[in-house]
């Protein structure tokens, strides 16, 4: 069982749909402890990605599709989520470059490189109340899930969702929310929540394309 280009395209479309569906919620989360543009920005970025998907080459690999996601998010999101998710998809796509089919190990390599890219760009650590608090448990869960890519993505998505919830009591130490200090506690981090949606889309696409 392996995941190919159809999965990568389906993931992208489902991620765009989930972001659009939860745009208001993400914006509200960001209004509580940030600058209130996360939902709008991410929706703009994923809309632009979907618009470009149709024009992508017929012989594209999963890595090609996810690299297109990266470059489009970087140039269209307009907030910190652009360079952060853009770097994640860029480093992730490099880790699976040239592969037509992704097994569990390739999925884990993708997720690990994506998480490392966000750490490199945002310089956040676990516990800082950022998207890293969703990505890190996701990477760990995927690595522990064995060599089935669908199981790895499902484990990652569930762990990211739990990680997003676990950001609620934390005090932010990075990003705009850190300006609030102690007052950032009691709110869920918007970036961790959007990470949960994006990885949920990846798992759902894997289950549909398996």
């Amino acid at each position, binding site marked *: 069982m392996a995941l190919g280009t159809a999965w990568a395209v389906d993931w992208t479309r489902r991620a765009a749909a989930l972001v659009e569906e939860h745009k208001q919620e993400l914006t509200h989360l960001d209004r509580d402890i940030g*600058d209130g543009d996360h939902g709008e*920005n991410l929706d703009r970025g994923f809309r632009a990605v979907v618009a470009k998907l149709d024009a992508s080459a017929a012989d594209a690999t999963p890595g090609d599709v996810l690299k297109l996601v990266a470059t489009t998010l*970087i*140039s269209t999101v307009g907030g910190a989520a652009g360079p*952060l998710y853009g770097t994640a998809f860029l480093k992730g796509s490099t880790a699976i470059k040239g592969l037509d089919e992704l097994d569990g190990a390739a999925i884990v390599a993708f997720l690990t490189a994506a998480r490392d890219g966000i750490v490199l*760009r*945002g310089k956040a650590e676990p516990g800082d109340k950022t998207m890293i608090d969703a990505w890190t448990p996701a990477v760990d869960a995927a690595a522990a899930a064995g060599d089935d890519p669908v199981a790895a993505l499902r484990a990652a998505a569930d762990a990211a969702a739990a990680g997003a919830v676990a950001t609620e009591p934390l005090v932010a130490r990075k990003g705009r929310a850190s300006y609030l200090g102690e007052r950032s506690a009691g709110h869920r981090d918007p970036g961790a929540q959007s990470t949960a949606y994006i990885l949920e889309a990846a798992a759902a696409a894997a289950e549909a394309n398996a």
Partner: protein
Amino acid sequence: MTVALVFVSHSADVARGVVEITRQMAGAVPLEAAGGTDEDGIGTSFDRVEGAVHRALSASDGSGVVVLCDLGSAVLTSETVLDVLDDDERELVRIADAPLVEGAVVAGVAAQQGQDLAAVVAAAEGAWGRAAPADAPAPPEPASDTTAVAGSDAAGDATHDDGTVVRTVRVVNEMGVHARPAAELVKTASTFDADITVGGANAKSILAVVALGSKRGDELEVRASGADAAAAVDAVAGLIESGFGED
């Protein structure tokens, strides 16, 4: 050719405004504004930053480019732009960890003086201290008329009981204390272990000195306290009286 500067802000207006402010101090320095999103909304644009960096690179003609940013995503976007530059281009671009407006002015003055890339970055990053944080030592208070004057020396300096040294000098150069003389004055003042004011402004802050707007013929009181007070007054007053090497 000088080092070029790029200003990355969440607001197109802010970035353009910083260019205007800096232009006053750094007429010969290539300045690029990269503010706002592609639709001129609040945010940052990868394409605008990338374009500005490329224009600055060609204008700087090998001297290099310093990027100054306002908030988080401006830094992240600028770093991402650097990621996609060619290696030989990336070597010539630095993102300064500096306050945007103060850093821009200080970097502009340093670039205008022909300082190299590392020096311009250092100047910008030194601007944090110039914003005079709340815990900064207060400049010496102007002495009231009742302060006992312990004596005065040949140069006419009044030396007060508390060790404060004061001398009044006149601005003699045609252009007054504009950007270059202000930078020179701050550089000189910064070498002394003393709290120094010129016309009441902190002599170690280029922004404060420039804000005086001193013109030819103005009298300026140079006042210093601390270990090097006398030497500091000699040097700073002497610099002003020499006309900063200008006519």
